[in-house]
């Protein structure tokens, strides 16, 4: 350790190290990127299928996706269709835009003779973004299924939003009350009667993540109301 290093040596040493590390890391990232993107795409298909209660492995999801999803659409804020590939719309960018410019993807699925409408959602949890898909039956009121996911919610607490046990609590809930007012689904503490149509039980120790789900559902479904109304009046 007693050896003396000149400033020159230190500069050269750190330059080589930095360039070397940068090369290795960027090479690795470029090499692996196609595989990673494929995984992300497959997972998206898997999550969409899960929201209509079709549980498949990630690898099979690509084959089965178009067996169930019969139509995809991009809607504007008035419920009119616009051109484009709904699957490629990145909700992360869209929710930051003002409503009139927003593109809203919609997936229409056929499962055992029923038509289900799948709405993608995105919001924020405690530490980062949360997202998910909720499917509505053709009455545009009853929730047929839901699937949530997250990047960084607390493991074991907030992360439970992505577990099936929590997701299944949303099945059969209604987003409109009997007078036809929009209510969406509240996520509440202290336990609820499972038959209550507008409420589900929150997760103990994960208040912020549970509230995030509630807001995400409320805001996320509401923007599709013009489309629902058009379909109902057809």
């Amino acid at each position, binding site marked *: 350790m007693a050896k003396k290093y000149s400033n020159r040596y230190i500069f050269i040493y750190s330059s080589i190290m930095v360039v070397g590390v940068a090369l290795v*890391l960027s090479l690795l990232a470029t090499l692996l990127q196609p595989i990673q993107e494929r995984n992300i795409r497959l997972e998206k298909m898997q999550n969409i299928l899960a929201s209509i209660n079709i549980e498949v492995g990630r690898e099979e999801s690509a084959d089965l996706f178009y067996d169930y999803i019969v139509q995809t659409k991009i809607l504007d804020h008035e419920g009119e269709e616009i051109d484009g590939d709904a699957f490629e719309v990145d909700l992360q960018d869209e929710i930051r835009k003002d409503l009139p410019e927003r593109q809203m993807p919609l997936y229409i699925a056929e499962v055992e003779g029923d038509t289900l409408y799948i709405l993608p959602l995105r919001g924020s949890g405690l530490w980062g973004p949360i997202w998910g898909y909720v499917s509505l039956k053709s009455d545009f009121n009853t929730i047929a299924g839901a699937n949530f996911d997250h990047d*960084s919610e607390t*493991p*074991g607490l907030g992360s439970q939003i992505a577990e099936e046990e929590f997701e299944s609590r949303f099945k059969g809930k209604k987003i409109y009350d009997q007078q036809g007012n929009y209510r969406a689904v509240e996520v509440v503490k202290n336990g609820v009667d499972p038959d209550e149509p507008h409420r589900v039980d929150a997760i103990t120790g994960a208040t912020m993540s549970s509230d995030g789900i509630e807001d995400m559902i409320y805001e996320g479904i509401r923007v599709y109301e013009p489309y629902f109304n058009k379909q109902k009046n057809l």
Partner: protein
Amino acid sequence: MSENTKNKAEPLFSYKNKKLITNPIGKENPITIQVLGICSVLAVTVQLRPSLVLAIAVVAVMGISNVVISLIRNITPPRIRIIVQLTVIASLVIIVDEVLKAAMYDVSRQLAIFVGLIITNCIIMGRLEGFALYNKPWPSFLDGIGNASGYGAVLIAVGFIRELFGSGTLMGQQVIPEFLYNIGYVDNGLFILPPMAMIAVGVMIWVQRTRDPELIDVS
């Protein structure tokens, strides 16, 4: 290094080398004795599975980073050694993360939040600074594995206790039988909150020092 080891090739698992692995699991445990790495113990031990995954990831990162630092120990200028260590740890963590994302996507989704935590784990830098910088690659490797195992063992123990009593499950599987709930048993909500991890580690420290009085800090 004594004369002895210079002349004669030391066996790979000599008494001294074995100690490098066993000591940090027992009476030189980085968590219960040195009280390092507490932050991640409190954060990730709500369930057994994430504890296990993090333990394995730390073993991998620590073993490799100790070897790398040990290999370059004679050419690294001491004035920038900390930043070199940091670069090595951070790069390794990124490599682990990228490879997992491509090859084991499910595991990578589980690890998501822990990857950052590995970089900030003070035990890793502590061992680089305290051991790998002055020792040959093989003992450094053993020291890294040993300390990471000591850390992992505590992590897994705390995760086990907290998931069992907090949620009645292990690895997500229900283990507390249904009839106990029927006769009035309830999961203890305190166990899933971070303070319980501190209490659990505290109890471990207490038990360990009671059984081995020479560990008691007299100062």
